[in-house]
């Protein structure tokens, strides 16, 4: 807090003392060096024109933030070599340079301090000229960025293999390339009192609901935070139901997924420095959708989707159901199964409930360790965790074999849909507690409680369970199954209500049928 306050004070004092440039080049350079004192990445390169020695210049930039090749070839070289004597007036040297000499796609004369600050800090170059109290802001953003690679968080076998990067402009480009339409709008704003992170609200005019847009802007306006380092900050700051384990703001690393969501009427929020783009509103069904579903055969895709939703159901419920049946409702078990479970539990000291809790915990510990470790060590952790520990625990009769099986099964199932991971872990524990209290009835009541909670949650005014109960045209086609494209003629209701028609029915169907 103290640090933040000091910084702000500093800014203010600067603006008050000398808020504009003077005509002396040296003074101006000093002025900048004073602002960025103790910051040795600030480079001030002075040079002058061959033919006109009065044309003394200085480029100011941050080392590493700019494309130096571009700067050398397109800015410094022309100024050095061009014969400025020919037909040029020294009075208008700045304009001459701007319009005739410097080879750059984006250049602007300015004497606004704030503008100068923000451009130099985002990687632009400031060109100062002797005798002018203005400067030129030359776009030269560059420096190291990550290449566009396939995202790790959502791999596909079929489909585009590009993912977002940390650069906001690259990300917007990727989206723009998918949707070539003049109605695709980008609205920039800055968030973070210190970091001044750029974020961009991205939507398709005519599809996105204005109410949601207004609500989103209201919530973004309300954010007063010093730093935004990842889209996760914003995700948590604008979400509904802040205490719920469920995500109410979606995110994706894939441009195609974001484009598809924009086309359904959602609004995307791109944050500079984060490869994860947020989408609102977000409903539960989206957790079960993968972008590959839309590129594969619809039967296969539907099968995968069912697998995912059933998988999540099993992942949350299986330990609880097992516990309930084995410790409360033994009559449910077929006799041979009862006998084999009994024999596996011979000599095991811990109660089933406790050992299930412990094993679920251990599984999550292994998962966490393996994620954080470098890959080779991560693999080792996996092997030790799964093989050695699992085997040894059963051999040593600390935990019975079925418990290990259940844990592993539920653990794998929960990975089927990575976005729901957090809520699954919480929910699973809750169900387990309920089942250990009241058997299968506890589990059922836990389910009812979870359902009541889910029914209460809304994401930007849209019910979170949207579509999960309907099987009709608008909403249900893309929930439990992925209907064939020729039949998905309408966008999901409520979200895409402003322009429901996705494709004209007859053409779509006819071309497929024919």
């Amino acid at each position, binding site marked *: 807090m103290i640090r933040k306050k000091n910084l702000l004070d500093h800014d203010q004092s600067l603006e008050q003392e000398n808020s504009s440039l003077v005509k002396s080049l040296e003074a101006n350079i000093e002025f900048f060096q004073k602002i960025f004192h103790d910051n040795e990445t600030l480079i001030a390169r002075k040079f002058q024109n061959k033919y006109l020695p009065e044309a003394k210049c200085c480029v100011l930039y941050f080392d590493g933030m700019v494309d130096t090749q571009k700067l050398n070839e397109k800015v410094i070289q022309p100024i050095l070599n061009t014969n400025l004597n020919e037909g040029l007036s020294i009075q208008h040297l700045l304009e001459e340079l701007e319009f005739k000499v410097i080879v750059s796609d984006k250049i602007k004369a300015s004497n606004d301090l704030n503008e100068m600050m923000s451009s130099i800090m985002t990687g632009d170059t400031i060109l100062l000229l002797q005798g002018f109290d203005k400067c030129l802001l030359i776009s030269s953003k560059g420096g190291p960025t990550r290449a566009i690679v396939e995202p790790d968080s959502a791999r596909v076998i079929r489909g585009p293999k590009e993912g977002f990067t940390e650069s906001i402009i690259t990300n917007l480009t990727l989206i723009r390339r998918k949707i070539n339409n003049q109605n695709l709008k980008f609205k920039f704003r800055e968030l973070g009192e210190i970091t001044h992170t750029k974020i961009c609200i991205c939507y398709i005019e005519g599809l996105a609901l204005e109410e949601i847009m207004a609500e989103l802007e209201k919530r973004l306006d309300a954010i007063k935070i010093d730093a935004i380092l990842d889209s996760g900050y914003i995700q948590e700051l604008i979400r509904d*139901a*802040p*205490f*719920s384990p469920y995500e109410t703001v979606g995110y994706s690393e894939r441009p195609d997924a974001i484009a598809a969501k924009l086309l359904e009427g959602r609004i995307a929020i791109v944050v500079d420095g984060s490869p994860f783009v947020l989408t609102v509103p977000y409903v539960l069904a989206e957790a079960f959708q993968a972008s590959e579903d839309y590129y594969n055969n619809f039967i296969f895709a539907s099968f995968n989707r069912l697998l995912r939703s059933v998988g999540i159901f099993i992942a949350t419920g299986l330990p609880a159901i097992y516990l309930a049946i*084995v*410790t*409360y409702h*033994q*009559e449910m078990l077929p*006799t041979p199964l*009862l*006998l*084999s*479970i*009994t*024999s*596996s*539990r*011979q*000599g*095991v000291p811990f*109660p*089933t*409930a406790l050992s299930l809790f412990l094993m679920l915990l251990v599984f999550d510990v292994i998962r966490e360790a393996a994620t954080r470790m470098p890959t080779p060590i991560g693999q080792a952790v996996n092997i030790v965790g799964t093989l050695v520990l699992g085997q040894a625990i059963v051999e040593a009769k600390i935990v019975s074999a079925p418990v290990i099986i259940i844990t592993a099964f539920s653990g794998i199932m929960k990975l089927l849909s990575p976005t729901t991971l957090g809520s699954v872990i919480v929910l699973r524990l*809750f169900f387990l*507690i*309920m089942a*250990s*209290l*009241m*058997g299968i009835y506890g589990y059922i009541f836990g389910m009812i*409680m979870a359902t*009541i*909670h889910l029914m*209460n949650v809304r994401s930007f005014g849209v019910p979170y369970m949207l579509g999960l109960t309907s099987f009709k045209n608008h909403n249900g086609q893309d929930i439990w199954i992925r209907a064939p494209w020729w039949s998905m003629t309408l966008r999901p209701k409520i979200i895409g209500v402003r322009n429901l028609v996705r494709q004209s029915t007859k053409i779509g169907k006819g071309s497929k049928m024919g």
Partner: protein
Amino acid sequence: MKSIKYLILSNMIFLNMFFLTGCWNYREVEKLAVVAGVAIDKGKNNQFIVTTEVIQISGGRESKTTSTYITMEGKSIFDAVRNQISFAGKKLYWSHTKVVIVSKEIARHNMLSVIDWYNRDSETRSDVNLLVSREKTAKKVLEQRALLEDINSFELADTLKNQISLSKAPIKELWGFINDLEAQGIVNIVPAVHLKKNKNMYSPQIMGAAVFDNAKLIGFLNSEETQEVLFVKDEVKGGLLIDRDKTNGLKAPISMEIFKNKTKIEPVVSRNNEIKFNIKVDTRVDIDEIVGNVKYANEKVLKKLSNNEAKNLKNRIEHCIKKVQSEYGVDIFGFGAKLREDNPKVWKKVASSWNDRFKNVSVNVSTKVNIKGSGLFSEPIKMGD
């Protein structure tokens, strides 16, 4: 926001309960003494002797399932069952019990005293198989070592399940017994079990049936008779018909396997309130074993055989009904129930005196045997001279 508060609140209450009072019905599987079967005998002074077969599991890599027996006396069945805790140390677990064997003596006295607890308790399951022991005590039957399985009770249950391809004993689950007990115009028959020597040791064998009058045992039927009764009751699903084909001059018996049987009982009430029953038996069989030199591929011969078989069956059934009428005098065939279903008005008049009427009710049996195949061979095996 609010709902979260209440979620937390309710969870706190639950957790309190969890830690302070424990969970009431929580029980680990290995703490259960799983009862596989139970035998009930009569003891001294009107006491009951209950023997339970309890499954013992030794864990480890190669787990082994064996069983042990607990015998205990008590004033009532439940008393005896609970007394076993003093012996076994664990509470017995009844949901996986497969058979209940009742001794002759108790069945003669009153079956109700046995089955009421079993049907009423919520842990026991009423779809357990009921057996009546022909041996002196039921305990003896239960305590024999099983032939193929580890646990005797499970083998008995399996035997009963596979009875459909033998049809020499009825299958009676406990709730069915109670159903028939309560129903009007039908009495129970229950499979009977006895011991038979096989390779130096005795093994239980399920053959024949015990006949009840209400809840009291009044006699046994042998396996042949049981099959005939099952024919009438339309409970034959398999088994064999074995007979000599006298018309074709065969000396050795011929075996036919039953594939399907359909029996219809039709009560006929004449003007003067006389009740008659038409029984139509329609059986589909397959020739499975012949010794002799007759070509059954011939249609005429086949027809002769089937007619003969039908006649034999008819004779057997008629004889059986006669015997039951004269010897036991109780309606094990369910004629009365059939009459009640089809003609409740007439039944109301005769209900009170049905047992007497049954003894001389006239029955008209018609049988039909369809021979559909003769195994893999089309011709008899010939000896080469």
